[in-house]
């Protein structure tokens, strides 16, 4: 009989090795899935993981890696701070939308004035939009004990309705021939989130993501607040005893994750996406949850996980167009990654024993 025995100490080796094991298991089982669908498994895996980086058109795909990775990392960093403290913000998608609407709204309000101040103002507005949207579940939780998972998730759907209303109403492009959607910010220099080095994919959102990684790393490792987050997640009573105010911590965690998601939305709408449209959001807020866990809720881990996730997105797209793999199969493939990660995670705290069952003292 196989059983799991709790380790006296969490294993450092396995906590580092599980993401690699999970990626490998995903390749094996994903390959199996593709084989069942009648595709060459090896070629499919190579297409997903190799083509975007070193293939013939890598010059095009590499910048995409940064463009897709940045919002994932930015959002996941914020989520991880909350997850570490046991505060479950599931509604980053909504906060991402609100950040985009607020950011774009401020930019469009100044149209067609040109000024250096417009873009920084948009950044502030985007951060505020996301922060405000995440603070709703935070206040409800602190005041009335509501479940932040449900409230933040439901607010995603509210935000989507708001997005639709904005692209059809207030923010609609007056010169857009009646099509839904706002003016394109890429054609408004003061509000455009351009590549810092042309063609590199390195826009201001990438810079913000890097700063967030460093900020979160220092916060968690060196700052009282990061310590409060970690203790609260490990042992809430001990945290209280250590002087942590749980309500303030909930407000902080949800607030900062909303803020970062809002920033991600703002950088996206003013850069790669360019405009507010009904289908502006593509699920970064939800995928970031996977990224946060894939990165072990560790800032550096999240950076790599975000890039890996972006890779499967881009590689998945290539596989769809070149090998005619169905989009659903790619999603299953991405889901597998989280599944295997959580499954292998057990090995960090437990070891596998083969033998008779017994209750140790």
């Amino acid at each position: 009989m196989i059983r799991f025995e709790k380790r006296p100490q969490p294993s450092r080796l396995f906590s580092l090795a599980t993401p690699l094991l999970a990626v490998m298991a995903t390749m094996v089982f994903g390959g199996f899935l593709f084989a069942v669908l009648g595709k060459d498994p090896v070629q499919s895996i190579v297409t997903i993981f190799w083509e975007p980086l070193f293939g013939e058109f890598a010059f095009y795909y590499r910048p995409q890696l940064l463009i897709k990775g940045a919002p994932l990392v930015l959002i996941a960093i914020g989520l991880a701070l909350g997850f570490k403290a046991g505060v479950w913000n599931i509604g980053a998608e909504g906060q991402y939308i609100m950040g985009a609407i607020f950011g774009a709204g401020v930019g469009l309000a100044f149209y067609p004035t040109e000024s250096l101040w417009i873009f920084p103002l948009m950044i502030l507005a985007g951060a505020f939009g996301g922060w405000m949207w995440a603070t709703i579940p935070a206040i409800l939780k602190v005041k009335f004990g509501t479940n932040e998972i449900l409230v933040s998730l439901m607010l995603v759907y509210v935000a989507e309705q708001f997005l639709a209303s904005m692209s059809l109403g207030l923010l609609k492009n007056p010169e857009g021939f009646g099509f839904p959607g706002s003016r394109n910010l890429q054609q408004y220099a003061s509000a455009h989130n351009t590549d810092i080095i042309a063609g590199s994919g390195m826009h201001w959102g990438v810079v913000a993501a890097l700063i967030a990684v460093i900020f979160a790393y220092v916060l968690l490792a060196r700052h009282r607040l990061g310590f409060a987050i970690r203790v609260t997640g490990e042992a809430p009573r001990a945290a209280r005893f250590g002087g942590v105010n749980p309500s303030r911590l909930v407000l902080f965690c949800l607030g900062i994750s909303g803020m970062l998601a809002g920033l991600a939305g703002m950088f996206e709408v003013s850069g790669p996406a360019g405009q507010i449209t009904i289908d502006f959001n593509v699920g970064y807020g939800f995928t970031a949850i996977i990224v946060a866990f894939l990165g072990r809720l560790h800032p550096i881990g999240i950076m790599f996980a975000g890039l890996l996730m972006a890779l499967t997105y881009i590689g998945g797209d290539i596989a769809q167009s070149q090998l005619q793999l169905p989009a659903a199969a790619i999603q299953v493939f991405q889901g597998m990654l989280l599944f295997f990660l959580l499954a292998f995670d057990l090995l960090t705290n437990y070891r596998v024993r083969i033998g008779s069952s017994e209750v140790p003292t």
Partner: protein
Amino acid sequence: MTTPLLSLRGLTKAYPGVVANDDVSLEIGRGEIHALLGENGAGKSTLVKMIYGLVKPDSGNMQLNEAVFTPKDPRTARASGVGMVFQHFSLFDALTVAENIALGMEDAPAMSQLAARIREVSENYGLPLSPDRIVGDLSAGEQQRVEIIRCLLQDPKLLIMDEPTSVLTPQEVAVLFETLNKLRAEGTAILYISHKLEEIRTLCDTATILRLGKVVGTCVPADTTARDMAEMMVGTTLKTPKRSGSEPGEVVLKLDQLSLPPASAFGMPLREISLSLRKGEILGIGGVAGNGQDELLGSLSGETRASVGMIEYKSRDIADMGPNERRKIGLLSAPEERLGHAAAPDMSLVENAMLTGATREGLEKGGMLNWSAAGDFANRIIEAFDVRTPSAANAARSLSGGNLQKFVIGREVLQRPEVFVVNQPTWGVDASAAAAIRQALLDLAKSGAALIVISQDLDELMEISDRFAALNEGRLSQPRPAIGLTVEEIGLMLGGAHDLETAHV
């Protein structure tokens, strides 16, 4: 002597890195109360778990009623006539007594029939208990009765009791002993685990003493002094802590009608607690678990806030101060629950040193944490309090209970508290570590600090406190000088006079 009811021969059980039981043999006769004595980690639990079918021995054999006895799980053990009352109850607070008992039965009879049987057994054995009451409303002593009756309904030949008196008042202990004596008279054998030596001397016929997994001796407790038994348990001569005997100074902490609503449905409110604590004195607070000890500590540590005017520290109202603000001015505390409250289980000792030491030890500056200073602090605690651990980087949960307790107490003592509040300082700690902790508390008082020691171990309180008060149902009795108090007086102060009938033998 006739053939024994249960005999164990050469039982050995090893776990990775430790031999929990090494060639243990013992015999229990019908109608015998047999004490199993030993410090924490001596192997008592492993031994009874083997008898109760929870653990399989590596080698050796057991005989019950002259037949080979190899229980493969607790159910087979129960079917063979072995019952066990655990130290920690497995009861559902929201269900009635009868429902709880029915849940643990193989084929429970109809509820009305079961209730009748519960009444019958409880009357027979002098364990007054109504089957319709909700378990959450019962005292710890009454909850224990539920567990005992659950066993008795199976008509056991051997009853194993793990530390049964740790949660009882002296009066409840007397009731329990009457019941056990009656069972003995009927021929039931009882294996009685405890480390309270006086109890064993009054109750038990024989005692087997375990140390580090081996049987180190047997004795007739009535003919052996408690000190001799303790030294057999520990293997060395015990040092008795020295009293401070210093004159109490000015009042540093004053509680005035401290009242708090209960934190949860089964929580205990605090009701009008008043006391004043002087420099250099130790106030011992006794009482059965669940009578407001946690709540009292929480209101002093700052985890729960009382209203303005209820808590005064050095003539200053501290009602709205949080835990760290109180630490800063010298009011420190150590809660009962080591894992999860006093310390975060999965975090290292360094991080746990940071948990309460940041403010007073200057481990933080402008919000940034100084981990190397925290490491030094953790190492200082480990050294000063003889904490056994490979290094300060080990997780708190990897330490044994006694070692972690030394760490938790040491962490606060080394921060030079002016008032130190501690709940259950030596709970589950072996005798020599307990003596060290008590000595540290006495030394702290001698150096001029004021201490409140909350404990359920009355011997401990009598040994170290200058004054004694009792918590009962969230009320605190008037503190009295500890010297000269008799067990009866203490019992009355504890007020836990729940159903003082004893068995009708």
